[in-house]
């Protein structure tokens, strides 16, 4: 038996986790995310000629994965009945006081997202994932498509089969909840 790793095996070892981490930002079900990673590798191998070498191999693979993710979501939501479109298990009013101005219940802390300190901080992104997982599925997907994939709002609406008004509601909830979760679990956590 030949136990030496084939180049394809090395590829999976080298990029598998990054692709999986990316997929989980859009797809909360690990088995579905794994399948999309697998499809990405297969599509990439069948289309090696498509790799022009003017971007890194990783960037090229992420590009293929992005398309797999949006195709998957399009198909999934094309079949969803309209009555299930807006999830309402996050209540915006819960974030605010009833009195006076209706301030946020807890004053936002004196911290900022410092990209140079955070963008390569694996521990931060682990916490980010935990916070994202607490959002309702479609809310998280709307947010990730808009912010990570930087997709145009109209395009996000098409992928998720929702109206613009629905999208704005989901994004407002996502920003309220994610900001608060990251404040609690990262910026105010003394164990960092």
């Amino acid at each position, binding site marked *: 038996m030949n136990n030496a790793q084939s180049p394809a095996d090395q590829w999976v070892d080298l990029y598998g986790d990054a692709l999986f*981490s990316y997929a989980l930002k859009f797809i909360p079900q690990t088995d579905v995310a794994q399948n999309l990673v697998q499809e990405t590798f297969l599509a990439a191998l069948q289309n090696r000629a498509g790799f022009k070498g003017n971007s890194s191999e990783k960037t090229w693979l992420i590009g293929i994965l992005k398309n797999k993710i949006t195709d998957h979501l399009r198909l999934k939501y094309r079949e969803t009945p309209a009555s299930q479109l807006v999830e309402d298990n996050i209540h915006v009013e819960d*974030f605010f006081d009833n009195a006076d101005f209706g301030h946020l219940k807890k004053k936002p*802390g004196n911290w900022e997202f410092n990209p140079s300190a955070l963008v390569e901080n694996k521990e931060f992104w682990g916490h980010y994932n935990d916070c994202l997982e607490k959002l309702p599925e479609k809310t998280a997907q709307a947010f990730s498509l808009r912010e990570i994939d930087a997709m145009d*709002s109209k395009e996000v609406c098409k992928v998720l089969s929702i109206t613009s008004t629905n999208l704005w509601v989901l994004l*407002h909830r996502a920003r309220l909840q994610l900001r608060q979760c990251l404040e609690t679990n990262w910026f105010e956590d003394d164990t960092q």
Partner: protein
Amino acid sequence: MILNRLIEQLPIIPCQEATRLASEAMDRKLSLKERWNLWLHLKACDFCTQFVKQVHGLSQLLHQYQPQDEKQLSPAAKDKIKSAIKKIL
């Protein structure tokens, strides 16, 4: 001073509405009236001013996101992918 006193006399939207407008401003163009209401609110509210800074910061950070291995495929999942690849090679 005069401006601040004037602002206090104007009707100001509540924070829930202000954060909604601030969020929507990231995804669509607000009307003139909406922009005025948001601006006026932020002049008077530290809470929402900080909120807006932070959600903008989050957005900028996410635009730069490059996946690493913050989440990992299980060894079984990796083996499954590797054998799927072997089948087509």
